[in-house]
C-alpha cells in the first residue's frame, strides 16, 4: 500500500490533453495519476462507465478507445491524448440510425434478450460486445463466450448476453 518514494513528478500536477469523447472534443487538464475511468466518472459526470474492481479483473469499466475495447481503470487518461473514446452514453450514436436518438442494435438486443439484471456490468458488456464485433474474430457461440469472458456479470445473464450478441452479428436485431 505505502509509497516508499516520492513520485518523480507530482502526481497531481495537471497535464493538458485532448480527448474526443462520444464525438465531442474536449480539452482537459488531467493529473497523471487519474485513470480514464475516474476522469469519466468523477470529472465529466459520465457515470455510465462503471468501476467494479479498479484492477482490470471485471470489465465493468470497458470503453472503446479508437474502436478497441479497453479497461478504462487500467488506462491513465494522459496516455490517451488525442484518442477517440466511446462510452455507453455514446453507443447509440454509433448505430445505423445515428442521430435519430435510436439505440444501438446491441442496446436493443440486450433489452430484448434480457441480457442484464442489476445493470451494473451492462455498460462494459455493451462496449465489449461492440469491440468484439469490431475485432471480427468471434463467429460462433463458443468464440463469443470466450471473447466476452473479460466481463463478469454476477447476476449471471451470460447466456442472454451471448444470445443478444449473436442476434446482432446475424443482423437480426430489431
Amino acid at each position: 500500500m505505502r509509497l516508499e518514494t516520492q513520485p518523480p513528478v507530482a502526481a497531481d500536477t495537471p497535464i493538458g490533453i485532448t480527448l474526443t469523447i462520444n464525438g465531442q472534443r474536449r480539452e482537459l487538464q488531467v493529473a497523471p495519476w487519474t485513470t480514464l475511468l475516474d476522469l469519466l466518472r468523477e470529472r465529466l459526470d459520465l457515470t455510465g462507465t462503471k468501476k467494479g474492481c479498479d484492477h482490470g479483473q471485471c470489465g465493468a469499466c470497458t470503453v472503446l478507445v479508437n474502436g478497441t475495447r479497453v479497461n478504462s481503470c487500467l488506462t491513465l487518461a494522459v496516455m490517451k491524448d488525442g484518442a477517440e473514446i466511446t462510452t455507453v452514453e455514446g453507443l447509440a450514436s454509433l448505430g445505423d440510425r445515428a442521430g435519430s436518438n435510436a439505440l444501438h442494435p446491441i442496446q436493443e438486443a440486450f433489452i430484448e434478450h434480457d441480457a442484464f439484471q442489476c445493470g451494473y456490468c451492462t455498460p462494459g458488456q455493451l462496449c465489449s460486445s461492440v469491440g468484439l464485433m469490431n475485432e471480427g474474430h468471434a463467429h460462433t457461440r463458443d468464440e463469443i463466450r470466450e471473447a466476452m469472458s473479460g466481463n463478469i456479470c454476477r447476476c449471471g445473464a451470460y447466456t442472454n448476453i451471448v444470445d443478444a450478441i449473436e442476434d446482432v452479428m446475424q443482423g437480426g436485431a430489431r
Partner: protein
Amino acid sequence: MTQTFSSTGRDTFVGTPRSRIDGPAKVTGLAKYAGEFAAPDLAYGYVVSSAIAKGRITAIDSAEAEAVPGVLKVLTHENRPRTAWRDKNFQDQVAPPGSPFRALYDDLIVFSGQPVALVVAADFETARYAASLVRVSYEAQEPGTDLRALRGTAYDPPYNREGIKPPPEPWGDADTAFGSAAIRVQGEYSLADEHHNPMEPHASTVVVEEDGTYTVYDKIQGVSNSHQYLTNVFGLKPDQVRVLNPYLGGGFGSGLRPQYQLFLAMLAAQELKRSVRVTLSRDQMWSFTYRSEALQTIALGAEPDGTLTALRHDAVQGTSQYEDYQEVVVNWSGVLYRCDNVALGYRLVKLDTPTPGDMRAPGAVTGVFAIETAMDELAYAAKLDPIALRLKNYAESDATAEGKPFGSKELRRCFELGSERFGWAKRNPEPRSTREGRELVGWGVATGIWESMMMQSSAIATLTPDGRLTVGNSTGDIGTGTYTILTQIAADTLGLPMDAVTAKLGDTRLPEAPVAGGSWTAASSGTAVMKACRNVGAQVFKLARAMENSPLANVDFDRAVFADGRIAVAGDPGRSVSLVEVLQAAGVDKVEAVEQAGPDQDFNKKYEAYTHSAIFAEVKVDEELGQVRVTRVVSAIAAGKVLNPKTARSQILGGVVMGIGSALEEESMLDHRIGRFMNHNLGEYHVPVNADIYDIDVIFVDEEDKANPLGVKGLGEIGIVGVAAAITNAVFHATGKRVRHLPITPDKLL
C-alpha cells in the same frame, strides 16, 4: 385488454413476458447507482483498513496524510465526533442478535480489514494516496479463524435470530434407527466461505442540503433500513434525512444491512458540513458479510427398498465474535423427506471475522447441498434411481412444523418435466460409463427448496387526470425486475397500458416496505401495489357514479370492469366512461391511496409455504486436467404464479450461474495465521465468467398457491438451491469420485 377486480379476472400483462422497463436506462448508462450522484463540493472518503485481525490499535499517525494538499480530514477512533453508542441504536432491521459492529468506535480490532480511519479529500486520488500515508501501529493477538480447529468450541446460539427457525426437536430415535438400518450412508460435507461480490462495490453519497438536511444515496436493498440506522445512530429526526437508491448494482444479500461506508460517509459529512462519498474498493468487499462455511455431518439409514428410516443432519457454522449470525441450514432435510427418526442440529463457532450474512438462499445453499449429495450416495447404495429414491421418501407435509400440509408443492411435476426435458431416462447409472473424447460425461440430479414468505409492506398509487398512474414504495429493485412486475400489476388492476404507469422505488419518501430479500418482494410489494390500485379504482368508480348522466348510475362496484383506460359495466360494455373523463369531470388533481399488505395469518396457520425445484446437470470432466465443465443444466421450478416469464427466467439463470460458481470456483481462502481472506480480488476469487456457462434451460411448472392474492411464491433464491448438489452428483456419475467439500477444484479430482 380486460381486467376485472374479481380474482378470476383475466390478466393482460401479468403472466406475460415483458422486457424490463428499466432497460433503456440501464443500456444507455443513465441509471445512476449510489456512488454516482453528484453534489456541489463533493468530498471523497477513502477507508484505511486494519492490517491485523485481532488486537488493539496502539497509535495512529495521520500527520503525513493530513499534510497532503487537498486532504480535509482524517477521522479515526481518537478524533471522531460523538454518535450513539448503544447496541440497539446500531441494530438495523435485519441484524442478528448481538452487539453490532461500530466503525471507529475504539481501539479494538475484531476482524482483518476493519476500517480504522477515513481519509477525506477534495478528490478521489488524493484521498486514496493520503490513505496510504496513515500509519497505524497495532498490538496484535493470535486470531482464531479456523472453523475446523475451533469446532470444539461450538455453542447453541443464546438468542434466536428473528425469522430464522432453529432446528426442531428430534423425533423418533435417529441414532438407534441408523445403527440398525439395512443401508447406511454417512459423511461430512462443507461449502467454502463465499463472498457476494456484487459488481457494484458498496458506496454511499451523503449530500448536505442547504437547509441542513441530508439526502443520502446508499447501496442498500431497502432504503428504510439505512434511514432507521442513520436516525438511530446520528440522532437525526426522520425528516432530517432522506435515503434513496433507485438502482442497486447487485446485492445477493450483501446490501441487506447498512454497511460501514454509510456510517463513515455520514460521520464525515456531519463533521465537515460538506457532501461526502465513500466507495469501498473491491478488496474491501471482503471486509464485511460473507456466506460462512458450515461443517456438516449427515447420516442416512434406509430399508433395502430405499425407505428412509434414519436421518441425522448436524451443522457447525462460523459467526463473528460480536454477533450470533444464524441461518436455516439443517431444517430443509426434515422438510424434504418423510422419515420416522430424525435429528437435526445447528451450532455456532465464534471466529475473528466480520459477521457473516445472508447470501442468496442463505442456509439452503449450504444445507441442501449436503443432504442432496447424501441422497445421491444413498441412491447408489440402495441401487435405486436418485429420482425414484426421492419420490419414495417424498414429504406430503412439513414434519418440522407439526406435520402441517404444504400450501402447494409441485415438486413431483418438476421431476417429471425436468427429466423429460433433460433426457434422464437415457441415463446409464454406472459411474464412468460415458466418455466423449478425452472427457468423462456425468448426469446428476438434485432437489431445491426455499421458503415462500411475505412481509408487511405498504404502497402508494396515484392516478392523475392525464391518465397516468404512479405506484411505488421504499423497497429496492436489486435487478430482480421489481419495477417491471409492479408496473404489470398496476396496469392490469386499473386496466391501463403499461406505458401509462410509472413505478417508483428506493426512496424513503415513499410508503415503507422491507428490504428486498428472502424472495418476498413480489408477494409483499406486489400485493400492496395491487391493493392501492384497487382502492384508487374504487374511488374513481364513486366519482364516476356521481357524474351527471353517469353511464354507471346505479351500478354496483362489483359489476365494474376496468379495461382500456375505462370503467365499464360487466355484461354491458356499451356503458362505460374513461378514467380521464371521470377525474376531469370531478375536478380533482389526483386520486390517491396508500394500502398495507401483509401475510395471510389464516393461511399461515393452516399451511407451510415453500418453493421447490428439480435440477439436472450434465458435466464433462477432463481427468488429466481435473477440469469440470457444466455443459447443460435443466432447472424445473415450482414457485407459484410467474408474473413475468422473461425476468423470472433470468432470475433462475442467475441462480444457476451462482450455483455453478459455488460448486466449482468460489472459495474465500483464510490464512489462519493472520486471520485474513487472502484472495480478496476478482482475479483470485473466481466467479463464473461467460466461458464457464453453457446451456441452461428453465422450466416453470404450473402451481396454484393461495398464500397471497397474486399467487406468487418468490423466485430470487430458489434458482441457486441444489445446483451444487446436482453438479457433485454429476461429477460422481462421470468419475466415480464423490466430492463432499466444495468447490470441486481440479486438485480434488486428480
